[in-house]
């Protein structure tokens, strides 16, 4: 009996159980101690939570691009975070024009402001989508039948090429996204004081997420993309244009990332060449968390990661007596990625993909 068990359970599995258990204990101890110390008030937690949702909704938008491309090409588009960065840049340059012409000066939300923001977002989305299509055409399409690591290395190369091209073209300095007077301060929603920019970001994200959901589920093109994701050859036999479906996937993913770039810039008011790196990795984490290839999963995963990243440093690390926990928030996000890939590669809603065998 014991011999049988040893055959089934390898040493690594046991080691992983132990690691997992220790981590769980550490997290619980941290949380309990933080709550007992009571350093933060309820309002602090609410702030962090809302902040997490706004950040998470941006992650969700980026994560969709990862998940859709993964679904259709089985490839991690490492450069997707940089498409997001490019969108922020396009949005920034457009916003500067509007700012100079006084579109952002009004103290209240008016038609001019809404128009300006919509145009900024559209330009960013279009530019980012164009870049994504270009990337697919030049760098990925010729490698569609290559071994798996080849397109991944290409994508990593493309990512750095884009980052440092933007550095060269537009400079290394951090560009301050124009401040919008009408979006300063807070509003009260259901008795909770929320920053106005956060409201804008959350609402805009949810509108786009719903639009995407409808596109994929209802439109003919969306169904074609789903079919190609299922089985490229069969889809081609059914008369679906595979190249076109893949292109549309990059277009949609790129547009969402571009729009996310603008929302992110609204939220943090910073635009610079390396800004896509961490959000990109986190969005990938979100996509994995929700089950890569799964569109609803990416949305859920994005929100979850945003909230976790916002709450966890204070909630867990403070209690463990670690100074300046916010410094480790990126490390925590990566740790979450590593843990998910190790313990639950299927993600919350996904099919099992990380290890290839059942």
């Amino acid at each position, binding site marked *: 009996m014991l011999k049988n068990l040893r055959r089934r359970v390898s040493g690594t599995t046991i080691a992983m159980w132990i690691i997992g258990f220790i981590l769980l204990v550490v997290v619980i101890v941290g949380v309990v101690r933080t709550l007992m110390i009571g350093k933060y008030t309820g309002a602090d937690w609410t702030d962090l939570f809302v902040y997490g949702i706004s950040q998470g909704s941006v992650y969700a938008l980026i994560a969709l691009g990862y998940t859709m491309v993964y679904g259709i090409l089985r490839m991690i588009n490492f450069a997707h975070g940089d498409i997001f960065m490019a969108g922020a840049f396009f949005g920034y340059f457009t916003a500067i024009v509007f700012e100079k012409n006084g579109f952002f000066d009004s103290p209240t939300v008016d038609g001019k402001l809404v128009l300006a923001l919509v145009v900024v977002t559209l330009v960013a989305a279009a530019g980012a989508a164009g870049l994504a299509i270009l990337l697919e055409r030049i760098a990925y399409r010729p490698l569609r039948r290559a071994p798996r690591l080849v397109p991944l290395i290409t994508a990593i190369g493309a990512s750095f090429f884009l980052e440092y091209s933007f550095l060269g073209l537009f400079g290394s300095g951090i560009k301050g996204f124009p401040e919008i007077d009408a979006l300063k301060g807070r509003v009260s929603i259901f008795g909770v004081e929320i920053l106005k920019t956060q409201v804008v970001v959350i609402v805009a994200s949810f509108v786009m997420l719903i639009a995407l959901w409808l596109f994929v589920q209802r439109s003919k093109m969306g169904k074609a993309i789903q079919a190609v994701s299922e089985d490229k050859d069969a889809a081609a036999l059914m008369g679906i244009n595979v190249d076109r479906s893949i292109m549309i996937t990059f277009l949609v993913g790129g547009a969402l990332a571009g729009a996310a770039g603008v929302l992110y810039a609204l939220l943090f008011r910073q635009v610079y060449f390396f800004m896509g790196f961490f959000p990109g990795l986190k969005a990938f984490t979100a996509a994995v968390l929700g089950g890569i290839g799964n569109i609803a999963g990416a949305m859920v995963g994005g929100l979850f990661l945003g909230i976790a990243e916002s709450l966890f440093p204070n909630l867990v690390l403070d209690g463990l007596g670690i100074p300046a926990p916010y410094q480790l928030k990126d490390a925590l996000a990566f740790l979450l990625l*590593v843990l998910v890939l*190790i313990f639950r*590669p299927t993600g919350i809603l996904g099919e099992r993909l990380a*290890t290839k065998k059942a």
Partner: protein
Amino acid sequence: MKRTSPFSWMTPVTTGLIGGVVALFLCLVGIVEASLGRYVITGIVTMGQVFVLAVYAIFAMQAAQKAAPGQDEKPAPFRTLASGAISGLMISVVLAIFVLLGQQIDLRAVFIHATPVLYDLLTFGLGVPQGIFVLLGFGILMGVLFGAMALLPSALRRSLGAGLIAVPLVAVIYSSLFSGRGLSAFQALAVFVVVGLALFLWGRYQQPVRARANALPARQQRSMRLGLWVVAILFVLALPALGTYPSEVLVITGIFVLMGLGLNIVVGYAGLLDLGYVAFFAIGAYVMAILTSPEITWFPFSGNFWIALPFAVLAATLAGVILGIPVLNMRGDYLAIVTLGFGEIIRLVALSDWLKPLIGGSNGITQIPKPVVFGFSFDNPQKLYYIVVIGCVIAAFIATRLKYSRLGRNWMAIREDEDVAQAMGIDLVRNKLMAFATGAALSGLAGALFATKLTSIYPHSFNLLVSINVLAVIIVGGLGSIPGVIIGAVALVGLPELLREFAEYRLLVYGAVLVFMMLKRPEGLLPEARRKLELHELSPDVAE
């Protein structure tokens, strides 16, 4: 009957337009402007101009070659030259449009490198409109000139090309190592002629020479090979004579060779894409620092370089095993991302205030001593170089031995087809772990050397870009190929070190190189060779 293949005059137009966009990109991204200060031929041509010229050359030749008829077809010199000219003109047209646009609106508000210097360069200092006409004429001229190369026999073309590439290359090395100036016109011509001629003669007489050498008796062949080895070793040993600064570049290059050899085992042999390779480099460096720096007081033990070295390697190896166990049964692309995550976690933790009392946080650790042997201190790069070379030799030795062993074959089987490898009875995790740990050990060794070289280390020296740098090195050289690692490190680490003004564009180039290599030459510059085991047989394709 001779016939001509289908040809469209649109081809050179599009080729030229793409070339124009590339040239414009190089200008706007700042590469051209940054290298205007470096003369290739003193007083005449700068590196910046060479970059623009290179675009003309590459695209005009491509356009001309596309227009050139096949071997069994009627020659079409006019069509070939005209295609070159059209593409050259198109490049100039794109640049001219940019200049004219720049006169109307302030492009600098968006593109920081759209400076007057750039406009000046593109209009040959003549301003608008005279400069524009000169630019267009120049394009046609370049197009015809480089288009004409397509008409030459291929051996001649290759020699000419090599001569042309050699001039700026030699100039860069010469100016940064010795003179600070470029070549004189005469020197440039000499380099061009010598390299061109050498390549031409080599191409022509290579086979007879090889045949002669192979016809020699076995003993003479052996002593000839030995002689070549001795020359190569003497060359490597003599390099520090170039001076302090060149030696510093050599040390950095050597450290990347060391890391490249290690990562080559992981990625090249076993096919495991490890993007967190810098983590082991960091661990090696930090262990070296903690064990030797007098700044560290909490650690009860403080030793010299030689005592710390094995611990640095051991710690990195151990870290490789510990990180490897949970991740190595993951699928390839997930493994890449997880290792990347690990690398970043280590850097972020080292940077945080949490471990600041132990490893200095963002202040790093300083005062790391140099190695000393019997009172002889390796206190300058010229001396340190030899330690790095010894490290590289050991690493290359280990890598070669492992490659041609049971373990090496198992790794390659895993790389080729994991499922089948497992069906051959190969324990995947165990074998992968060996590769991962060996790679980590070599990275730790490189990190330890890096720490002594710099005498101080900071967390930001250990970011993801180091991993990408090493990856680019081994991919350019050829995955799995040991000489390839050296070529890759020289091209991607040594050369950019010399081109200081270029530092900002290193990662841009790496990115482009990774994409380009994967698309056009995934096997690298010096592809991996397989050793013959069934020696006596005739085989058509071993050196695949």
